[in-house]
């Protein structure tokens, strides 16, 4: 039927692990592309997910604007504040919240279990599923950044590489934390509840809805260590240039620490099948 003898196959397959493993081989990229393509189609068909992912980050910064207007921030540029808020909201809604639902939905539909019977590795399955949301978050962050520069006079970033680092760690961490949250979420309906703690905590404590400068001194010091705080701080500092090299290094280190912890937690707790 396939015209390949067992012998041919064995030699062909014998070479596979060397070429076929790792995330950056062409086979691996092809699988991730296939998974991401399907997930992208699904994202487009889920209207409530699209609405949350697209509209919330666009609308929320403008809804908090009056509060920011009233507060008196000497020397803080309104554009920068809005920009930080907008990108933070992209992390939380375009990536984190929508991915918690996506992981739970795929698990409950037994899609994850089915995929694991095939060739994709665990990392490819999780990554392929996350890719559309992460790209959406990134595109949104770029559009919002441009908007804030053009319309709100945010100015050009002074240390763009810090913003890039902040975006990268923020997007990665949001996706990883979504995988972790899905482990503690039984249904797609309850995902709207289980995602709330991190959303609220980050909005208030990580400098998204309001600058951490507004918090009491001691609280602000603690909040620096919340999961998304380093990413938001890096994004903002890239624009304002407010961090010294030493501070920037520490912030990047905190971001990396959170990423490592989250990855280990996902490996330990992620659920590939529904509970029986």
């Amino acid at each position: 039927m396939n015209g390949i003898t067992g012998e041919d196959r064995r030699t062909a397959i014998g070479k596979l692990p060397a070429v076929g493993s790792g995330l950056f081989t062409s086979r691996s990229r092809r699988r991730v592309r296939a998974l991401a393509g399907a997930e992208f189609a699904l994202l487009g068909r889920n209207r409530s997910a699209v609405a949350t992912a697209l509209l919330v980050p666009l609308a929320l910064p403008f809804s908090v604007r009056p509060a920011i207007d009233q507060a008196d921030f000497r020397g803080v540029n309104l554009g920068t504040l809005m920009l930080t808020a907008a990108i933070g909201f992209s992390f939380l809604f375009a990536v984190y919240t929508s991915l918690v639902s996506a992981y739970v939905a795929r698990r409950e539909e037994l899609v994850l279990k089915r995929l694991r019977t095939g060739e994709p590795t665990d990392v490819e399955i999780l990554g392929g599923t996350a890719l559309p949301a992460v790209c959406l978050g990134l595109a949104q962050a770029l559009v919002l950044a441009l908007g804030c520069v053009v319309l709100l006079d945010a100015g050009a970033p002074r240390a763009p590489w810090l913003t890039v680092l902040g975006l990268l760690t923020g997007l990665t961490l949001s996706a990883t934390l979504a995988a972790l949250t899905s482990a503690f979420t039984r249904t797609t309906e309850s995902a709207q509840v289980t995602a709330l703690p991190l959303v609220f905590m980050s909005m208030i404590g990580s400098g998204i809805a309001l600058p951490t400068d507004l918090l009491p001194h001691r609280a602000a010091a603690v909040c620096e260590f919340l999961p998304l705080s380093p990413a938001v701080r890096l994004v903002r500092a890239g624009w304002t240039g407010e961090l010294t090299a030493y501070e920037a290094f520490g912030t990047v280190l905190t971001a990396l620490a959170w990423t490592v912890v989250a990855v280990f937690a996902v490996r330990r707790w992620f659920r590939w099948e529904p509970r029986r």
Partner: protein
Amino acid sequence: MEHSEHEHVIEVTDLRRVYGGGFEAVRGITLSVARGEIYALLGTNGAGKTSTVELLEGLAPPDGGRVRVLGHDPYRERTAVRPRTGVMLQEGGFPAELTVGETVRMWAGCTTGARPPAEALGLVGLGARTDVRVKQLSGGERRRLDLALALLGRPEVLFLDEPTTGLDAEGRRDTWELVRALRDSGTTVLLTTHYLEEAEDLADRLAILHAGRVAATGTPAEVTAAQPARISFRLPPGYFLGDLPPLGPLGVSGHETDGDVVRLRTSELQRTATGLLAWAERSRVELHALDMRSASLEEAFLGIARKREAAA
């Protein structure tokens, strides 16, 4: 690794699986499947069929014993095994909002040397449903989509967990034909089923699982041969078991009565039947509801379940 004609493609030794709550679903299963064979795991619900197949598919590591598929550990050496196996789980696993075509294309993108999606859908007769969303498929169509995905990579080894559950009679026959054609082209097939006639018709060899153990194994003929044939009838009023000729010399190995119904077990159906009918003729007795049947897989299956229950 053996290269002989009868190379064992699947080898399982003393396999064990224990679930979180301490439930031992698989309690020491040993079996081997040769290249190009259709092997059926038969059992009631809860016998350990799916728990066993999931270990062979490499979805989980065993809690004891050893699994080799194509000479590799399917869990630890998945990159070596997965491109050569095709799997159909007991229950679906497709996003409801994707179309049939999109689902197959996604799977093809994840599969080395995949057939063209149209060919795979054609094999299972779903070609006309390419643009339909998965959520609109019937249960039987979903099973066939699942089979199409399992066949996509032209696998050497095919695992089918209850492939015909939910199919109508025609769909079941089509699936059987397809599985036979695959076997004839050299594919090794391991399937689970609780349809006895499916195992009897389709399997080259089978194992009956009961409570996580192999209760019987062999070709369908071997497994049924170990079972007695059965004769049952009703005696007319006024006749009792003692009126029958001595049962031992007729080859009867066991009997039971239930009111006027008599059931006999024999491994020599012709001798027992001849003696019984000759007696009835001589005595001018009419045996009502007379039923004689040689052993079937069903007898074997029920016999095993009964024996185990009695032992428990």
